[in-house]
C-alpha cells in the first residue's frame, strides 16, 4: 500500500510539469497583457516597457517558463497585477472554495445516495420513476439557470437566505450556493447508486445474508450499500476536483471570492502567475483526490489490494 501510494505520488511529477507548461503556454498565447493595464487609454510606451521587463514578458517563452518554475520551487508564485502575491490570493480563495465544495459534496452524497438506495430498492415503482424524472430535470437545467432562479427565490422573493455571500464566506451562507453547485452531480450520484444497488441486490452474498436471517437494515447498509458504493466513490472523487475548479459560474452568481473568481479575474487580466498558480494547485488536488479514491477502493472492497 505504501509503495503503491509512493509510486502514484512520483507519477504526479511529470503530470505536474506537463500541465503547468501547457497552461503557461496557453495564457502566453493570449498575447501581451500589459496594454490592458492602462484602461481605455493608450499605454505610455516607456512605462509599459518597464512593466514588461519586470514581468519577464520581454523574454522568450521558454525563459519565462524556466524563470516561473524556478520561482515556484522557491515558494513564490508571482504577483497579480494589483500587487498582491498569488500565494496570498490562494490563501484566501482555496479555503472558501474548499468549504463550498464540501457543502456541495456532502449535499450530493447525503441526498444522492439516499435517493439512489431508495429508488434502487423499489425498482420500477412510483418512487423510482419520480426520482428518475426529477434527476432528468435537474441534469438538464444548467447551473447558471438554477443558480439565478434559486438565488432570486430564496434571496429576494422569500428572503430566506442572502443572495450573495459575504467576504468571509461562513458555512451557513454557502449552503444555497453549495446546493446549486452540487445539483448536477447529485443527479449523477443518484443514478449511479441506483444502478449499482439494483445490480448488487441480486448478488449471491445478499441472498446468503437474507438466508442467514440478518435484519434487512443490516443487509442493506452493511452488505449491499458498501459493495455498491465503489462506482459512486469514484465519481465523487473525480467530482471534487471538478467542483473546485468548475465553480466559476456558481461563484460568480453568488459573488463568492473563491478559486473560480480568482481564475476568472486572472484570465480576464491575462495574469499568467495567477492562472498558472491556481490551476497547478487544482491539478494537484485532482491528482490527490484520484489517489484517495483508489485507496478507498481497498477500504470498501477488501478483495482489492495494493502491493
Amino acid at each position, binding site marked *: 500500500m505504501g509503495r503503491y501510494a509512493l509510486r502514484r505520488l512520483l507519477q504526479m511529477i511529470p503530470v505536474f510539469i506537463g500541465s503547468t507548461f501547457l497552461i503557461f503556454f496557453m495564457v502566453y498565447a493570449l498575447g501581451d497583457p500589459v496594454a490592458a493595464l492602462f484602461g481605455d487609454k493608450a499605454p505610455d510606451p516607456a512605462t509599459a516597457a518597464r512593466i514588461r521587463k519586470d514581468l519577464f514578458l520581454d523574454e522568450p517563452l521558454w525563459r519565462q517558463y524556466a524563470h516561473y518554475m524556478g520561482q515556484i520551487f522557491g515558494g513564490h508564485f508571482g504577483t497579480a497585477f*494589483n500587487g498582491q502575491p498569488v500565494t496570498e490570493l490562494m490563501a484566501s480563495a482555496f479555503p472558501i472554495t474548499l468549504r463550498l465544495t464540501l457543502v456541495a459534496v456532502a449535499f450530493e452524497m447525503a441526498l444522492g445516495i439516499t435517493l439512489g438506495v431508495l429508488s434502487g430498492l423499489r425498482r420500477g415503482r412510483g418512487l423510482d420513476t419520480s426520482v428518475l424524472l426529477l434527476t432528468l430535470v435537474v441534469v438538464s437545467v444548467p447551473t447558471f439557470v438554477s443558480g439565478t432562479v434559486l438565488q432570486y427565490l430564496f434571496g429576494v422573493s422569500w428572503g430566506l437566505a442572502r443572495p450573495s455571500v459575504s467576504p468571509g464566506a461562513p458555512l451557513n451562507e454557502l449552503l444555497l450556493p453549495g446546493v446549486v453547485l452540487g445539483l448536477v452531480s447529485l443527479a449523477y450520484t443518484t443514478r449511479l447508486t441506483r444502478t449499482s444497488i439494483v445490480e448488487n441486490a441480486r448478488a449471491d452474498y445478499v441472498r446468503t445474508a437474507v438466508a442467514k436471517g440478518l435484519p434487512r437494515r443490516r443487509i442493506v447498509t452493511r452488505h449491499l450499500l458498501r459493495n455498491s458504493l465503489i462506482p459512486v466513490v469514484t465519481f465523487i472523487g473525480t467530482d471534487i476536483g471538478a467542483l473546485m475548479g468548475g465553480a466559476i459560474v456558481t461563484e460568480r452568481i453568488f459573488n463568492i471570492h473563491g478559486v473560480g473568481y480568482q481564475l476568472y479575474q486572472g484570465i480576464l487580466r491575462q495574469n499568467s502567475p495567477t492562472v498558472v498558480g491556481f490551476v497547478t494547485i487544482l491539478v494537484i488536488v485532482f491528482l490527490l483526490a484520484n489517489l484517495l479514491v483508489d485507496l478507498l477502493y481497498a477500504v470498501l472492497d477488501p478483495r482489492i489490494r495494493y502491493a
Partner: protein
Amino acid sequence: MRRVAPYALRTRASLGAPRPVHALRARRSLRAVVLIATAATTAPTMTACGAGGGGTDAGVVRSSWGDPPNPLEPANTNDVQGGKVLDMIFRGLKRYDPRTGEAKNALAERIESSDQRNYTITLKKGWRFANGEKVTAASFVNAWNYGAQIDHKQRNAYFFEYIEGYDKVHPASGGAPTAKTLSGLRVSNDRTFTVRLTQKFSTWPKTLGYNAYVPLPRAFFEDHAAWLRKPIGNGPYQVRSYAKGSVMKLRAWGGYPGPDKARNKGVDLRVYTDSNTAYTDLQAGNLDLVDDVPAQQLKFVRSDLGNRYINQPAGIIQTLTFPMYDRTWSGPAKAKVRRGISMAINREQITERIFQGTRTPATDWTSPVLRHQGGYRPGLCGEACRYDPVRARKLIKAGGGLPGGRMTITYNADTGSHKDWVDAVCNSVNTVLRNDRACVGKPVGTFADYRNKMAGKKMTGPFRAGWQMDYPLIQNFLQPLYYTGASSNDGHFSDTGFDRLVNQANAASADGRAIAGFRDAEKVLAEQMPAIPLWYQNGSAGYSQRLSEVALNQFSVPVYSQIRVG
C-alpha cells in the same frame, strides 16, 4: 453482476486484522455523512436569521465595487473603481464641483501665473492627513516626483509630462532615468511651490483636480507596503480596513477640515464580480447602492426602483475611429466616405433599442458634462452626424465607395458587450448601402490584444474607441486624441491646422478664449471626420430606500460624502 462465492466472506474473515479496521472506518465515514446531512437540512433556518441584519452598521452606505486592476496609489489608478476610493480619501489642489464640473480650489488658496507657463501655487492653512501630518508644499512635490519617476512604473506618469524635467525622470526609451526629481518643481516654503511647464498651457491649473495630483503623506514613502495595505489620505473618509479583492471599509474622518464633510458614518465598498448579483442584492436589501445597472435589468429598472434610479450624462464618449495610417482610409477623397459612413448610422434608433436610453446620440466630440460654458456644443458636427440615408449613399459613392467595397468594425469581445451595437451599426450602414455584406463586425478576443493591434497600427478599418475624460475640460477631449503624436491618438490622425489651433488655445490667457480656440479646432474634426462620434455615455446607479441625496459626478462616481442614510 459481480460473481462472488459466498465463502469469500468467510476466508476474508479468517484473514483477521485488516477487516474490522476497514469496517470501522467505513461505518465512521457513513456516520459523518449522516451528520453533515442533518446539518445541511437544519441550516436553512440559520440563514433565515442572518438574512435580515446582514451585518449592517447604522449610518453606513453599503456600495458595490469592482476590484481595482492596479495597486491603489494615486498616480497608479486609472480606473473608475480605484478612482472612487481616491475621491473619498484624498483632496487635491482643485476639486471638480460634482454638479457643475467647475474646477474649484480645494487645498489651493491660489494658483498664479503671468505667462501660462510658470505657476506659483499657494496652499490653504490647516490641512492635515488623517494620521495628523501637516499637508505642505513638499507633500505635493514629493508625490508628483514619485508619480513621474519611471522606476515606480506608475500608470498615470504621463500626467506629469507637461512639467519641465519629465524627460529626465521618465525617458521615452524606458531606460534608466538621469534625474531623480522633476526640475520644474520647486518648494518655496511650507505653503508655496512653483511649477515650470515645458509649454504654455493656460488650462493646466484646471487639470489639477485629477487624482494623480493629490498630495501624499510621509508614511507613503517610509513604509510603502503598509500604506498600500491601508492607504492614508486627507479626504473626508479614512480607510478602516481593506481586504483586497473583497471589501474596503471606509469611515468618516472627524478631523476633516474641508467644507464637504461626510454626511454619513461611512461607506463599505464590496467587490462584486457580476453586476447582476449586486443588483439582486440591492433588491434583497443587502446592498444600498449599485453604480452599474446591468444591461439585462435596464428594461425593469424603472419598475423595480422607481425614482431611485439615476441615469445622467457621464464624461464618456464613444467613437468609431479610422486608421489614418492606412492609405485606403486616409486622403481628402476618403473624408467624404468617412462623413458618409457617419451619416449612415442611425444613432437614435441604436441608443434607444440597444442601450435603452443610457446613451445619447453624439453631435460633437466632447461631452454634455462640460456644459455650454465648458465648450460642449451639440450640433457642432452638423449634418455629418445626422442620419440621412440618401446623402450618405451619395457621399460614399462620391468618395470612391468603401475601400474594396467592404469595411469591418473592429472591437474587443471580452468586455462590455460591444457586439450588439457594432452589429447594429453595420446593419444600419448595410441598409443604407443596400448591400448585406458591406459592413461586418470583427471581434478581437481580449482587450489587451485589441490594444496591441492599435499600438501596432494593425487596424484595417474603423474601430471602437471609448474615451473617459480625466478632467472636465474640452482640452481633454481633443488634444490627447487628435493632436499629432498624442498619447491616445490611436487613429494617428495628423492635421497641421488642428495642431495649430490647439496650440493657440493652450496659449490663450483668458478662459473663454481658450475654449473658443478648442472649439475651432473641433471644427476641423467635423470636416475631416477622423473619428465618428457615436454617442455620449451615461452613468447609471440605483439605490435603496435607506439612502437619500444620491448623485453621480461627471466621472459617473457616486458623490459619497453627500449621501444621507436613514
